């Protein structure tokens, strides 16, 4: 590090214990994207789907033109890397003029559990929400659902999103934070449920909750006695049966089933792999069925 950087510049270790920008152990559900993250859009606006555009419009209402422009540039040139998307917080390293990349973060409101419970119940009450979300789309009126509960799904003001950066720029948002915000827009393009994650629920949790809450409503639907197989089956005290089984097995004389079909050009590429594996298995374990 050159002397002037040391004297007047930025030191990364000053931020190591910062509550927002400091080193964190990401939670197990965090979405981690290693290496440089480059925006797909090369020119013009960033973010394609309506919810990503909605997301971006908030930023563009809050920030200054030139900085945002620079933010977009940073988003496109791979300056940002090692993203962590976690509950309430998005963190990344953004290379700037300094030797060591800056630490940049955006924080969001994590909704309390009770609020989530009500929100998810509301979402479960109509299949359309789950359907669209599973299909990779943000349902059109989703914001209303949260607004009815006094929650803001999209950030609308500086209360909803805060920008942090270890760079020396005092404007909010600085170009690094803006870059991170834009990259999130594209992440939202790919998976709208990221927005839920920012507010405290991972994708699995949302889907599981939708399922459970729907199951509540489903109790009224006559089930005809078909119950799903539970994932757990407690060991029972029928000791006679405890050791039994294992023999009888499967009828191996059914005749070989045809190999699975491999569609498309990908299939052709995989063909070789399949042959190789079959050969290896034959050699190691013996051939026929």
């Amino acid at each position, binding site marked *: 590090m050159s002397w002037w950087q040391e004297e007047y510049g930025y030191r990364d270790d000053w931020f190591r214990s910062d509550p927002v920008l400091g080193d964190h152990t990401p939670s197990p559900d965090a979405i981690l994207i290693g290496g440089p993250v480059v925006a797909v859009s090369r020119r013009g606006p960033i973010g394609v789907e309506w919810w990503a555009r909605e997301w971006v419009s908030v930023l563009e209402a809050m920030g200054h033109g030139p900085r945002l422009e620079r933010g977009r540039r940073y988003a496109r040139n791979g300056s940002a890397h090692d993203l962590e998307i976690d509950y309430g917080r998005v963190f990344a390293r953004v290379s700037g003029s300094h030797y060591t990349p800056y630490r940049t973060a955006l924080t969001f409101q994590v909704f309390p559990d009770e609020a989530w419970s009500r929100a998810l119940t509301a979402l479960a009450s109509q299949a*359309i929400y789950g359907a669209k979300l*599973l299909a990779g789309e943000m349902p059109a009126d989703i914001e209303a659902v949260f607004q009815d509960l006094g929650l803001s799904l999209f950030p609308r003001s500086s209360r909803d999103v805060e920008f942090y950066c270890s760079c020396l720029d005092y404007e909010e948002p600085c170009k690094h934070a803006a870059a991170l915000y834009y990259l999130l827009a594209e992440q939202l393009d790919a998976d709208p449920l990221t927005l839920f994650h920012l507010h405290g629920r991972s994708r699995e949790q949302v889907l599981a909750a939708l399922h459970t809450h729907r199951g509540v409503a*489903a109790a009224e639907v006559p089930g005809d006695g078909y119950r799903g197989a539970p994932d*757990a089956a407690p060991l*029972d*005290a029928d*000791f006679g049966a405890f050791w039994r089984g294992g023999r009888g097995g499967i009828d191996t004389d059914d005749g070989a089933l045809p190999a699975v079909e491999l569609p498309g050009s*990908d299939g052709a590429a995989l063909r070789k792999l399949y042959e190789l594996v079959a050969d*290896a298995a034959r050699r190691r374990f013996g051939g026929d*069925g």
Partner: protein
Amino acid sequence: MHVLHGTWLTDDKRYAFWGEAIPPPPRQFGRRPGGVLPHPFALTASQLFYYLDRFIPDCQPGGIDAVIWLPGDGDAPQPSPEALEAGAEPVDGMLRLQPWELKEVITLSSPEALDLLLRLPLPDERTIGFVPGSDLVFWQQAADLVRRCLVEQRYVPALEMQGARYLAMWKPRPDPGDLARLAAQMPPLCRAMVMSAAAAPAPQTLLDDFVQATLDAFIRATCEAEALDVAPDHRWFRAFMHTHDRFLNGTPRENRQLYDVWQAAWGDDGPGTFRVCFRLDEPAGESDEWPLYYLLQAVDDPSLLVEAEVVWGSTGRTLTYLERRFDRPHEKLLAALGAASGLFAPIERSLHQANPVRVMLSREEAYRFLVEAAPRLEARNFGVLVPNWWGRAARIRARATLKDDTAGENASTGLLSRDALIGYEWRLSLGGETVEREEFEQLVALKQPLVRFRDEWVALDPEQVEAALRFFEQHEPAGAVGLLDALRLSADAGRDAPEGLEVEIVEVRGWLNDFFERLRGAEVFDLPPVPAGLNAVLRPYQVRGFAWLVQMRRLGLGACLADDMGLGKTIQAITLWLHEREHYEVTRPVLVVCPTSVVGNWRHEIRRFAPALRVMTHHGPDREHGKAFAGAVEEVDVVLTSYALLSRDVKTLARVRWSGVVLDEAQNIKNPSTKQAQAARALKADHRLALTGTPVENRLSELWSILHFLNPGYLGSRKVFHARFAVPIERHGDEQAAGRLRQLAAPFILRRVKTDPNVINDLPDKFENKVYCTLTPEQATLYEAVVREELAAVDRAESAMKRRGGVLRMLTRLKQICNHPAHFLKETSPGVVSLKGRSGKLIRLTEILQDIFANGDRTLIFTQYATMGKLLRAYFEELSGEEVLFLYGGTPSKKRAELIERFQSPGGPRLFILSLKAGGTGLNLTAANNVFHYDRWYNPAVEDQATDRAFRIGQTRNVQVHKLLCLGTLEERIDELIEHKQALAETIVGSGEQWLSEMGTEELRELVELRQDALE
């Protein structure tokens, strides 16, 4: 004795290996206060290692402490049945399920586990010192299942979303039945290595996990061991090929796209191979609401369907139904509904409930579903079930009925009069059922794409509806057409009417049907009497041909007589004209257009067979034009002209209303765009006839041109014909189109070939015809000069002998001139250029030979003169590019034999010129089926002998003999004499030509003088 056990640990993704020792070892472990009791007779690690060393020596095992739940009495666990059998003591207290600590459990990676399980002996095999527990036996079968999946290539790559990342995994696809049965046999012992008995995994879950993880690990290990790599555009497969790094790397957008692609291509997941299906039902009762149901459908058994209700009603991750398992059905159904609502908007309506099972569609929406959405959904690998009347082409077609309206008058004769009209009716048929026009219009007026028609639902394709309406605007639903149109109509079934509506069938009612059939068979309904004015005896097939021509004339249909060359087309036509004049009071003349070289032939034949017909030849610079022409033709019955003059004088010729126009050698208008063809079509006539010796049906544009001349418009415009017939038949080999064309053309073409059984019996074996040729101007000039000089010389002759010599010399010279000027002038260096166009005989011979060569026949040409023979040989060799054989008096006998052999052999030369006097025996020339006498002996017997040689032995084929002679010259007259004096010929004529020299000068003059007909 050891009992070996093992099971799969889902959390660690490793296989735990432990065992029981009998007798139990001395107690080793102390008891932890309040903790779990240690298993008192579990195998130690080193004991377990022994087995590993034995079966999987390369392994790198791990070790863990584990807890296993077994029945026990509080102090000790119950030994397994295998242990009991080996002599272990059972516990004596009351049994309850309790946990036991296993201190030294060996763990193996899944590939190692696979190895171990497949190498351990099978349960029936003898083992010494150890026995597998029931759990191991079970896992052996599970391992075998994995092995089979690997060997039989029954697995697919799958992607699972985890957060924003996509995890690549290999999913096995065994027979679902196998898997289910295996899971059902899992001993609970397998599931007992858990911390809490309540949380023991379900058998299916445990088995699935094992199978999947083991298969997956083996595939990756193999890929790594073989250092397999993939092409750059399949980089994303790397996530499937490495043991570490199993996530797709790429931007979120790329990954998403890959995921979608994968979904579309590989579709479903796991052992529960199913997909979401949409079923459209008809409305119930009178309602107009169409329900679209949501279902799950097993991919390998499409009849296995689960309604959405059942799915919503189930809890847990898996749904079991009829022995099938469906993994994560709710998610799948929801995701499918989300995607499908993008493809078909009405689905979204149903998504406002929590548990949608169907959506009700309007009729319009149901139609749109069937037409637009269903294919799109299928393309995205959703199941689609629709009512089975959909897709059965409910096509709208037109149906015509033809019938004779004239209250049965014609039925008695079975024949139509020329002006008869045939009634027709057009109807619509919808999906095969007739529908009246009003009914149809009512259906259309509903403006619904799906309508109820005779108790069934039917889809109305809007394009077809429009075509049907247009069709009925343009066609009268009922009316009458002439015979020609009716014929065309009846052959039209199955083709598209120009308005785009398919013509379903054309029903021809009653006797009309028979009539059309017979027309198509060129059958003759009755035989008119042969005209009295005909100066010949017709052969039976010629009588039929004549009758057919009369019939066509009466019906007003243009006809094409396409008999083989030599069967007498000319005479059949002439008979027709006589018949017209005798029975129908036809007064206007007939125009015959033919090649120039044949004009003379026609003249001769008309004069010979129908001397009562007055003939006019329209040719020469002095020919009439315009009004003068019109006036002149009123006085004659037949006007002959050539194709050349047809186009030049079309204005003049078109002024006249002919009773008939005959195109001889009609292939001259085979190209419909030529001036000739156009001129021919411009002529006005009551009837048209085309004569040709070639099979017309094989050359489509020729067929069109001729039929267009005969019956304009019958085959449609040239463009339409091209599109409807020429391209399908010639380019695509469309049999149906070819068949339809045959049907259409059949009534108008009569063709007999020499090999026809009907004809062959009527033909003599030796079929002679005379070819009348004309002299070229050069020949005419020479001829007249020689006649003048030589006659004068003969007149002046002093002695009888000198006279005779003079006569003979004159005759010889004249004959040479008739052959070819070059022959007479003794020109050397003959060749095509120097010989061409100077002799009428040669011109005609060339024309005929072309036809013969086209049929692949072999020909002999006889000539008296070796010089002429040489000229002919040189000429034809150059012209045809093939070898021409030549045999003459001077040919040595060995060479003769060789030449004959070559001619007789199959691939040999096709033309053999012979110049022989009488004599020579043993000539076998049976390969020839055509014989020309280029010039003639004046002794018929000699001539016949020559021709007899050609077919004396075997007579395997009919031989056609042509005798060439020049009109207006001595050749013609001598021929006449011979004909008339045939009986006396042998006596008078003798073997030489002396009899000629006995004639007086005046007789001679009459004989040799050039008559006008000679000229072109």
